[in-house]
């Protein structure tokens, strides 16, 4: 996958904390913090002796596993769990090789630390559906190394050869001797970390492959799971900000007298140096409600003279114009070559697609807790790109990055919003902390966005227009496919630009078209307009619009040539894409597509798409009710290689599909007028509700033993086109704009 190679280089160069320094500090901190932790002592000693720098992340069990005297195994997750289930998946993998008793296994999000860098990217981050793809082997080795240390400790203690020591379900035994992990932890801790370990034969797996309840499920079902918003530090104050109505807007003047009169308000601060040069006014109070009332009582005069004020209808008009003009070439075949072929084509299909800005809108509004004592900074938030966040806070506060600590907490949803190359909300927290300190205060601060702040806070899925011209010959064969995409670049101007923007083409814009598996001659161009609306990756990134365009166009060709849409896909996939074929064939077989007659008024919709290394095919059964699609049943065929936790795969596919269904609903769009986002809360920005969840949603996984590929995102891209394709069968017209209108027919 291109992400891996490119991001690997990014990790070494982006605003990363010095890794060796962090490694040393982390080991010392961890060993001081938890006395019973397995393996901490030898690695702490090794760190002191200057040897830890030589250990690869996989060789550092101390940083990943600790075992209490009662046998509780705590696994540090190098990814934050935002609902994608990676914490449980990684713990399962480690516990498998460790032969731990699953009932005793816990998982926690790892703090900022060199050991927790993604082994492929080289930086600490959660994203790109990479947790198991990149860390499956790593966590297996960690588990195996820890197990070997138990074996060595038991062998020494019982004076038996290591090969006569067994480990099963958290119990170490040899002959009649037995000891639990907890009893042996101290002795195991003194063993050297083995350089080489043997991994299990996958046939012997007892955890991997078994549908497993998420570790956090009981706590989350009892209101006991703690998120960033639940952070409570002694003396902590809550901050609510008045943000500029237009991105990059400044404070001309403000009157805080009424805000300061609100009971519980402690101070009101002018905040400089925010993302895009913006300014804001922060109200600091004892708790959210007085802070919010204080914010509402502020009278702020904004200066938005110097910033572009976007208007959605105008933006659409200019994007449409650009879609008709030559852009930056993003394919081997050129548009010029295709023009000649198109001129001679027997038939043409011309299609234009429009996709709106979309907000991530996780259920937990963005927040960040910060404590700054003038020398050190402590951040508590759902960190998704730790090194970028730490580097940003350090730069704002004028301290070395080694003085920044991050305690990651689970996110109440994320979908990409916490991974901001410009670290917008962490920058804001740091600027508030700086101003707070400058005003003579020292207590920790919890910066809490309201839903309105969150929805209007930018970093949206880019507004995007696609235009395609397809030429067919007399036999119905596609002879030309001229395609243009107009969309802001997500990565230009970020630390990722040098690696993921090649020859002016942002990889996250063209993914899903430029790498189409279909045997069609795609000539692709892009335009990346600069617009004063911050954009970001949004669950499945470019695939959110490319899959829709490509998969509905395939069906257009099928309809134009009287071919079955499944057959046409099989034909275009040929024999070079066995994973696509397997996923599609599985969905077809399990759905009964082509085998059974649908009830009157219903139609099948098909789509298949690869993203983040996995292929998902959907067969949807759809009807129309008063012009709106009703999705009765969905059958998914999924190829994500080894299924570590089949239940997690099922829930991710169902959840991602529901989010994709959400993109079709009227009102699922962020629009702007005079630079101001017109939606303020979920009353105006539509999210899918329970009635939108298909009554039947079956997920089938293609069996595989290969290294797992992504699952958090790949379920999203193919659902909207599958529904659109069914709609086209019912109405004769494919919707080419998302969200769908109130009435399709």
């Amino acid at each position, binding site marked *: 996958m291109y992400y891996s190679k490119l991001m690997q280089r990014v990790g070494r160069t982006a605003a990363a904390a010095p890794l060796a320094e962090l490694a040393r500090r982390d080991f010392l901190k961890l060993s001081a913090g938890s006395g019973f932790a397995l393996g901490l002592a030898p690695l702490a000693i090794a760190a002191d002796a200057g040897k830890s720098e030589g250990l690869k992340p996989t060789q550092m069990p101390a940083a990943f596993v600790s075992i209490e005297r009662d046998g509780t195994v705590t696994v540090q997750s190098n990814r934050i769990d935002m609902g994608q289930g990676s914490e449980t998946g990684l713990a399962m993998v480690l516990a498998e090789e460790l032969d731990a008793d699953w009932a005793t296994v816990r998982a926690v999000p790892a703090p900022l630390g060199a050991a927790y860098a993604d082994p492929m990217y080289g930086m600490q981050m959660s994203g790109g559906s990479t947790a198991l793809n990149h860390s499956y082997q790593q966590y297996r080795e960690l588990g195996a190394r820890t197990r070997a240390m138990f074996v060595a400790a038991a062998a020494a203690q019982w004076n038996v050869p290591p090969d006569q020591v067994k480990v099963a379900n958290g119990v170490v035994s040899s002959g009649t001797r037995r000891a639990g992990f907890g009893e042996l932890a101290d002795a195991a801790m003194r063993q050297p970390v083995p350089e080489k370990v043997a991994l299990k034969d996958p046939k012997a797996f007892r955890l991997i492959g078994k549908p497993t309840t998420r570790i956090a499920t009981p706590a989350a079902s*009892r209101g006991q799971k703690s998120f960033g918003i639940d952070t409570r530090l002694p003396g902590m104050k809550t901050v609510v900000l008045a943000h500029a109505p237009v991105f990059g807007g400044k404070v001309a003047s403000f009157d805080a007298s009424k805000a300061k009169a609100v009971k519980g308000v402690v101070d009101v601060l002018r905040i400089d140096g925010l993302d895009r040069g913006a300014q804001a006014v922060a109200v600091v109070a004892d708790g959210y409600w007085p802070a919010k009332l204080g914010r509402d009582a502020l009278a702020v005069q904004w200066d938005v003279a110097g910033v572009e004020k976007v208007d959605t209808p105008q933006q659409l008009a200019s994007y449409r114009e650009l879609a008709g003009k030559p852009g930056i070439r993003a394919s081997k075949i050129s548009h010029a070559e295709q023009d000649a072929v198109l001129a001679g084509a027997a038939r043409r299909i011309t299609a234009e697609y429009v996709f709106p800005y979309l907000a991530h809108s996780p259920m937990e*509004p963005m927040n960040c807790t910060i404590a700054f004592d003038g020398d050190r900074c402590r951040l508590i938030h759902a960190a998704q790109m730790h090194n970028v966040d730490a580097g940003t806070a350090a730069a704002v506060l004028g301290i070395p990055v080694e003085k920044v600590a991050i305690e990651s907490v689970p996110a109440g949803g994320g979908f990409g919003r916490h991974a901001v190359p410009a670290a917008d909300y962490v920058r804001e927290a740091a600027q508030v902390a700086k101003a707070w300190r400058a005003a003579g205060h020292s207590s920790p601060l919890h910066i809490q966005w309201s839903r309105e702040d969150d929805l209007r806070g930018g970093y949206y899925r880019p507004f995007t227009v696609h235009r395609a011209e397809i030429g067919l010959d007399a036999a119905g064969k596609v002879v030309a496919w001229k395609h243009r995409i107009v969309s802001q670049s997500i990565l230009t101007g970020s630390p990722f630009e040098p690696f993921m923007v090649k020859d002016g083409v942002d990889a996250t814009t063209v993914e899903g078209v430029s790498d189409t598996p279909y045997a069609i001659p795609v000539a692709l161009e892009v335009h990346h307009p600069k617009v004063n609306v911050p954009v970001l990756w949004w669950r499945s990134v470019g695939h959110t619009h490319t899959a829709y365009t490509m998969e509905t166009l395939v069906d257009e060709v099928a309809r134009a040539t009287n071919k079955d849409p499944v057959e046409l896909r099989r034909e275009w996939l040929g024999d070079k894409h066995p994973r696509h074929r397997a996923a599609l064939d599985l969905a077809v077989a399990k759905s009964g597509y082509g085998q059974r007659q649908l009830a009157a008024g219903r139609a099948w919709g098909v789509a298949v798409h690869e993203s983040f290394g996995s292929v998902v095919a959907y067969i949807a059964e759809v009807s129309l009710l008063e012009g709106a699609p009703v999705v009765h049943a969905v059958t998914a065929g999924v190829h994500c290689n080894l299924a570590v936790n089949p239940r997690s795969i099922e*829930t991710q596919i169902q959840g991602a599909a529901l989010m994709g269904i959400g993109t079709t609903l009227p009102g699922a769009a962020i629009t702007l007028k005079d630079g101001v986002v017109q939606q303020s*809360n*979920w009353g105006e920005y539509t999210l899918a509700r329970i009635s939108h*969840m298909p009554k039947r949603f079956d997920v089938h996984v293609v069996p595989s033993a290969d290294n797992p590929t992504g699952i958090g995102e790949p379920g999203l891209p193919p659902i909207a086109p599958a529904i659109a394709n069914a709609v086209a069968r019912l109405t004769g017209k494919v919707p080419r704009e998302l969200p769908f209108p109130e009435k399709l027919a």
Partner: protein
Amino acid sequence: MARFNLNGKPVTVDVDPATPILWALRDTLQLTGTKFGCGVAVCGACNVLLNGNPVRSCVTPVAAAEGQRITTIEAVEADRVGKALQAAWIRHDVPQCGYCQSGQIISATALLKTKKRPNDADIDAAMAGNLCRCGTYARIRAAIHDAAKTLA
């Protein structure tokens, strides 16, 4: 100042009577299981039971709770229906990020108190006010059906 019964115990909160119950719970009483989602009564993350009825605590002032009975997610386990639902939630592995689930379980508790064997349409109607951005709705339906069965 407001006095009410919270999860079976009398409490007094020294806040402005207009303060929403949500912030009295989270910031004054330090009960953080009830979540802040929208602040305008459209997402259900803040749902609590007021005398057994689900209310949006983000827009319900503490004054409205004066002398009344509030039940939050933290005490749902003490209730037969709530306990059955939490067990079903765990059996069906409903939560993904988990943020909205306190409010979901509160709404489901109210549903099963009034309708012992709800069908899908009943469930969709009763749960329509609870958003879940992770899309756990299919499992929510299944868990409610399952809890209803165990209570029968």
